[in-house]
């Protein structure tokens, strides 16, 4: 093994790190969920007939994609209190991850929606479905199936992005590792264990996505 690598320390550090990983998992999951919920209206706003709505949605997407998540985290943490909104660090973290992910996810969805043949919606409307029914039952199921690989990458990217919430003093996996290194002075073993846990969660996301994809696109 590597010089000075003690597997025993990896095992010893696991309990602390797993506790951090659970926080990572929880915040990422909530962030991904929020991103997904917000992305749908943003994607449709980007395609809206109204110039103002389109412009506003574009501004949001472009601003998020043009600035680092770390700056956005600071913004969501430091700015709301100035207008009297108090968020816990955990709430700030989920909000920032959600707002960030929503912009990227919206662009993925928009691409999928544009690629869908126009007649799909038209035939739904001709049978008396409302716009929303057509979107929910005809458009989204297909679009989500078609863009699932891109959505999965986005989810994995949010999981990794969640490491940044350590700057809000939330003890998630990265911060737990960082603190442990400070205490026991064994960076190699601790970061090995941290990496292992991230890789594990990452693999779980892709595994789940594969299973979902098989179900969503069974019609192909």
């Amino acid at each position: 093994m590597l010089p000075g690598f003690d597997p025993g320390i990896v095992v010893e550090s696991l309990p602390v790190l797993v506790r951090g990983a659970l926080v990572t998992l929880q915040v990422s999951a909530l962030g991904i969920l929020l991103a997904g919920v917000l992305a749908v209206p943003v994607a449709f706003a980007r395609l809206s007939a109204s110039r103002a709505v389109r412009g506003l949605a574009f501004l949001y997407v472009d601003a998020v994609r043009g600035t680092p998540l770390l700056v956005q985290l600071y913004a969501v943490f430091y700015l709301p209190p100035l207008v009297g909104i108090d968020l816990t660090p955990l709430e700030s973290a989920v909000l920032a991850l959600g707002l960030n992910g929503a912009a990227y996810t919206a662009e993925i969805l928009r691409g999928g929606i544009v690629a869908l043949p126009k007649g799909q919606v038209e035939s739904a409307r001709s049978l008396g479905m409302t716009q929303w029914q057509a979107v929910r039952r005809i458009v989204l199921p297909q679009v989500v199936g078609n863009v699932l690989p891109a959505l999965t990458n986005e989810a994995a990217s949010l999981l990794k992005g969640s490491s940044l919430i350590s700057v809000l003093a939330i003890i998630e996996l990265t911060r737990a590792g960082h603190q442990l290194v400070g205490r026991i002075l064994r960076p190699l073993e601790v970061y090995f264990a941290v990496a292992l846990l991230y890789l594990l969660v990452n693999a779980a996301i892709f595994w789940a996505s594969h299973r979902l994809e098989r179900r969503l696109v069974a019609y192909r």
Partner: protein
Amino acid sequence: MTLDRELLAEIWPLFVRASVTTAWISALSMAIGLVLGLLTALARLSPWRPLRLVARGYVELIRGTPLLVQVYFLYAAAPYYHLTLPPIVSGVTSLSLYVGAYASEILRAGITAVHKGQIEAARSLGMSYWQTLRRVTIPIMAALVTPALTNEFTGVLKWSSILSLITVPELTYRAYQVIAESYAPIEALVLSGLMYWALTDIVAWGGRVVERRVTRHLSP
């Protein structure tokens, strides 16, 4: 919430200098990352299995863990091996390794998209492996990978913000300093945000210019 003009005037030059730092750190990491990425892509397509495995392990490890963990690791672990790196060297190294892994995936897809017959034609005329790579494969590939690499470059600009957490004096570091010392989060975040936004837009624009050049042969 109004902007403090006096403070803005005071921090403005500092932020400009910091964004120059962000720009060159990113450009350097991108350049090193591209070379690393190309070598890794070639290694992954090598007929020699151990080389393929090492390359694959590198890519999976980097892509499966957060950049912050990688940055912390290199920064914290190096001293234990009697290797004291200044933060900026440590940071650029991490960032380059990060870009290398992602770029290798883009380049690998580009290389495999180049038609086998096109390469065979070059080899049959007596071109060496490297000549073929330089004169046939890379030019054809460039058209295919430019959009993804541009996207990667804008990504590097944003990810470089993470180096602020190991005290590299780039844009986000300056922003955080102003928040912490003057408690002026609005001014700091608006200014740094706009500068990131401008930097990413410049790169995106440059990417489109390059794309037009390298895809000339594709337009009718």
